[in-house]
């Protein structure tokens, strides 16, 4: 049987948010679910995330942030992806989110949008659903 290409996910943190546990937990869970994960680490720029998404040829970007700034961060990452002609990379987000944030993110086309404590199976299923044809 032909080996299937694994789903490649870029887990990214932008800015100075120090809360890393969500990103690390998700990294492990996605690997356990058979995906390839590239984690940017903390203190990244939106440009850095967009160019990593392109150069690593990922299927999906997962933004993690616990400052309440996910709509701002997602907007910047989307702008940088546009600049690189890479608008086809779907984005999901997780961290501290108010109902307004979720709405703002959905309007930008960011799906998922999970609060803290979301079971990782839910996120795995969402990514599988989005990325698999």
């Amino acid at each position, binding site marked *: 049987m032909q080996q299937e290409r694994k789903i490649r996910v870029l887990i990214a943190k932008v800015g100075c*948010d*120090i809360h890393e546990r969500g990103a690390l937990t998700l990294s492990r*869970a996605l690997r356990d679910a058979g995906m390839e994960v590239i984690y940017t680490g903390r203190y990244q720029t*939106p440009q850095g995330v967009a160019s990593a998404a392109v150069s690593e040829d990922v299927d999906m970007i997962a933004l993690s942030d616990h400052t309440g700034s996910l709509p701002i961060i997602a907007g910047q990452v989307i702008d940088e992806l546009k600049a690189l002609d890479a608008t086809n990379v779907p984005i999901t987000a997780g961290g501290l989110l108010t109902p307004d944030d979720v709405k703002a993110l959905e309007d930008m086309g960011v799906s998922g949008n999970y609060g803290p*404590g979301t079971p990782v199976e839910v996120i795995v299923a969402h990514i599988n659903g989005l990325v698999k044809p």
Partner: protein
Amino acid sequence: MEPEETRVDRLAGHMVRTATQSGIELKPGYGPDDASHISYRKDLGDPGEYPFTRGIYPEMYRNRLWLKSFIVSYATAEETNQAFREYIANGMTDLRLLCDLPTQSGIDPDHPSAWNSMMCGGVATYALPVYEEMLAGLPLGEAVFELAHAGMSSFLYFYGLLVAMMENRGMDIRKLRGNSINDPIRTKLVYGCPDFPTHTDRRICLDHIEFSVRNTPSWRPIAPNGVDPCQGGMDAIRELGGCLAVATAVMEDLRDRGIGIDEYGPMVFSLDAESDFFETIAKFRLARKMWARIAKERLGATTDRAMQLKIGIRTSGLSLTHQKPLNNAARVTLQILSCVLGGVNSLDASSIDEAVGLPSQEARIFNLDAQHIITHEANVPLVADPLGGSYYLEWLTGKMEREVNSYLEEIEAQGGIFACLESGWLGVVMESCRARVQYEKAEGDRLIVGVNAFRCEEDEEGPINEAIRDTAYRAPTVAMREERVREVKEFKAGRDVRRLQPLTTDLLRTTREGGNVQRAVIEAAKAGLTLGECVGVIRLGYGIDYDPFKQIDMPDFVRGIVEG
């Protein structure tokens, strides 16, 4: 491969675990045989007596209740100041200070990497005037301040601002009360703070302590932190072991600067109150006992004061859930109760809306009221160490002591806590603890109500839960961030460079010569040196890039010094 389906029965009416949160297996019951190894004098002592297992004061809370604190840290100095006043009126006695995340990382709001987290988690306290505004009208010299920041530069700088404010007002800085976390392991292990490399952190830590011991004797300049490693994954054993190892290493370093433990005085640990009720209580009692032993036997303490450990608490933010947030009220209340039963000295409880956003005022008042109810209605603090002598608790305390000791031996065998950080070993330990928890949750061996058991859909939640979700504090808008960037640029442009330049030169020279930089930081801050510039100048003194993020150049007045 599909993830294994969770076998949690959402209607589970039975226990699913037989072990504590950190994995200590328990019997269904304990009796005299389980506690027969304990010597009352040697292992417990009366409250107020060595080894202080039962508390550091003879009458404990009768004489002095624990300090009630919050990290009060909203987006603007005005809001934060207003909240401090409100909380003080409601019985808060301890002001826990923080700042926004970029500032904690060592950069100012006009730095390009600040934008995405600017004013998040606190005020962008980039310079003295912002501190003046944030603390306006609060009683310096009477209030207890705690610096809870992440980066090591923060302790040096913000303690410096408190001293500067007092000196500018002609007050005696010996009256400054409070503590700094100032833990050089936690800053890297948990936060990977970019401000300084570890060897610099280690020296900055000692500079701050040395200056404080000599000038502000009521300030506790280090409080090794277990809260954040614990939130990062460490279990109770490794949390406590880490704090003991940091405190020991730093006190030994300090001895090389001519300050012994007797002169230093009591130690403070900043510990986590986790959800496992009895394990958490045992951890607090054990922390006091183990530190007293180390202080006496290893560090040569001869006074009771120098053997005493004060415990400051932050209850577990990680235990709080986004799902059915009302349940967080039960979690927080139990965690507060474990702190009181464990005899802690200050308590900062997380808020029920903390998994949704920054805590709202009302949720904070609930935290204070819960403590007032535990005190005045439930009468819990009337008697010191009320669980002392419990077969189970004493067995658990002894069991945990053996485990912590073997963890400390592992650390020693690898050259000490700093070597364990640098080699990456501590990170691996934290990662494997975290993975175990994740595995247990996925397997249904660790139930979190509303998350992997007893769930309901968000739209099945009632109006109370919905309201909690809606009232959480909102992150600052783009317009607010733009305003802050304008403000910092104006501030920088408006300074008297002729006054600032020689004081900055002094900071650079002191750093290069290996002197204690604390006084130089205080004087330069008085002349308007910002946090980001302070970090940059110290970095230059160590021969590394001005900017930790390598994105900006040093300002002209600093370039003038470096090239001049």
